């Protein structure tokens, strides 16, 4: 079987692309659309991306492989150039490339039935196992993977080459960016938070309050190794990485990613000209290990990324993420002002906060549910009153809360129907 045979289905199931919620006049171009058939656990998916796209669904429904495929479609040549830079050659063996890119054992996600259509063009994924001859080779998508904590084992950053063949490319590339930031860009500064003024006060304060609790994130190079530490007030030595809270360990690489994406210019330049920059950001499970207040601080960073013009894609299991998307879409429908957005995030009326809030109301939002049965459903409206439970229960994310509420309502009604103790006693007396 040749690789060309692997993607033979010329007629993927067609479903109409979603219409963005809100003011259509804001949308200038057609949303990028990715259609996938028979990709790992995904039987059929048709996603039109918004300025913010959120994907939800139970474990092992193909969300991650779908997003990694998107990265490959967007950054094909930059990925091949990175492998080449690290002396990794696949000798045109597509299977080996897939294992090197997606991770060991994942090349089997493709079968003879698999097919892809990206921005209206049918794509043979086998072609993507080789670089193209395009002159555009800069990175366009920054990917913050779910395994991001592995980029800082023991608080020391890892470069691309320190990982092994079969470790996912997205983790290696992210880790490399964090490594560069810690060892070079911020290495001499000594303090990573709240220090370098990479984020404005609006973004910094919630992180300070909800994630670091007034402690300082520092680079400790006492042992001739640049190691992250947490400086706690009143203590001489910084806390070692493994003594931090799980949420702090999860959040720190995410913060490094945000620093990388928020230079003094609007977007991160990755090519030779200012126009050659990052356009897309993928963040897998931004809520990992965080209290809802911490998640809200992260979501504020997401709104800042969108304000800077990045197209953001999130995967999540958190109702907080969907609460935000739901609220922003409702504000757009209701013609609400930026003050409503600030109310959600408990932000003061400062120019920076207003800018972020205002920008959020001009964006398009999309939400997709990856179902266990392999289908992918557009649930962008997130209508809690929708007839379809996939939409009303937000892809199962609020299903448990709904069942809990209803069970309590029923139990309350049932307890009210029982005769009271006093009445029972009176009845027994009369007998």
């Amino acid at each position, binding site marked *: 079987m040749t690789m060309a045979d692997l993607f033979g289905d010329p007629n993927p199931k067609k479903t109409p692309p979603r219409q963005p919620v809100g003011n259509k006049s804001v949308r200038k171009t057609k949303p990028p659309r990715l259609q996938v058939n028979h990709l790992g656990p995904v039987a059929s998916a048709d996603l039109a991306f918004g300025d913010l796209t959120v994907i939800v669904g139970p474990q092992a429904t193909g969300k991650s492989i779908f997003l990694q495929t998107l990265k490959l479609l967007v950054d094909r040549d930059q990925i091949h150039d990175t492998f080449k830079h690290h002396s990794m050659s696949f000798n045109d063996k597509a299977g080996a490339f897939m294992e090197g890119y997606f991770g060991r054992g994942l090349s089997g996600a493709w079968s003879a039935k698999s097919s892809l259509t990206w921005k209206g063009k049918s794509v043979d994924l086998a072609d993507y196992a080789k670089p193209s001859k395009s002159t555009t080779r800069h990175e366009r998508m920054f990917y913050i993977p779910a395994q991001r904590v592995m980029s800082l084992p023991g608080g020391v950053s890892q470069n691309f080459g320190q990982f092994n063949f079969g470790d996912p490319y997205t983790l290696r590339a992210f880790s490399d960016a964090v490594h560069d930031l810690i060892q070079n860009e911020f290495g001499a500064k000594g303090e990573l938070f709240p220090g370098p003024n990479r984020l404005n006060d609006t973004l910094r304060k919630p992180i300070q309050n909800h994630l670091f609790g007034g402690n300082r994130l520092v680079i400790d190079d006492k042992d001739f190794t640049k190691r992250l530490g947490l400086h706690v007030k009143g203590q001489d030595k910084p806390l070692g990485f493994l003594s931090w809270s799980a949420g702090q360990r999860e959040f720190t690489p995410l913060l490094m990613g945000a620093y990388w994406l928020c230079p003094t210019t609007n977007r991160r330049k990755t090519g030779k000209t200012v126009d050659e920059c990052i356009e897309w950001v993928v963040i897998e499970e931004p809520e990992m290990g965080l209290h809802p207040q911490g998640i809200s601080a992260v979501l504020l960073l997401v709104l800042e990324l969108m304000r800077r013009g990045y197209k953001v894609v999130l995967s999540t299991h958190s*109702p907080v993420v969907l609460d935000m998307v739901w609220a922003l879409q409702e504000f757009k429908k209701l013609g609400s002002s930026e003050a409503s957005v600030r109310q959600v995030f408990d932000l003061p009326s400062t120019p920076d906060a207003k800018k972020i809030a205002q920008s959020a109301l001009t964006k398009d939002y999309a939400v997709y549910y990856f179902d266990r049965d392999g289908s992918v459903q557009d649930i962008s409206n997130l209508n*809690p*009153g929708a007839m379809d439970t996939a939409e009303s*229960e937000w892809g199962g994310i609020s299903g448990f809360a*709904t069942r809990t509420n209803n069970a309590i*309502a029923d139990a*309350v*009604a049932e307890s009210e129907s029982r005769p009271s103790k006093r009445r029972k006693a009176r009845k027994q007396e009369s007998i």
Partner: protein
Amino acid sequence: MAAKGVKKTKTATKKKISGFDSAACDAGLLPNAGKEAVESSYRAQIQVNKGGAFSGSVDVDGHFRAAEPQSHRWDYGIGIQLMNGQELVCWVEPHPASSTGQVAKMLEKLAWLKNKLETPAFKKLKAMTHAPGHTGSPYYWLRTVSGECRISANSREARLLALHGLRMPTQHLTLP
């Protein structure tokens, strides 16, 4: 002979008084056939479970409007006869769910209804409210079709509803 015949026919078509009708009359409410007390625009949203039948309905709000103009009055009571002949009453309030602010209004209406059910006149209706044939809470919030639902399951207000024995608003009801 002819007069006798007419009399016989009249007797044959005379409506059988349901348990719900009788309970409604005791409470001083005017029972209507089927779902007829419910405003026509909401009727299609209310169905009965397979095997059951509507045994009557009352417009509670309309009845108490003049006497209690300032109260947050509950709208409808609907009688349901189950397959085994048992009769229940389900209390339905069509109301917008456009914001969590509506939850407080619904809870006031529910408190008003529960107070009414504690009065002697409502004794039979109360018994039918708490009859064992109910599959869950007998109180239903019917979301009005035109309005959006903006009450999320994770909200504090959704939990308040539950604590008062009221399920989340829905656009269609299948009673009981």
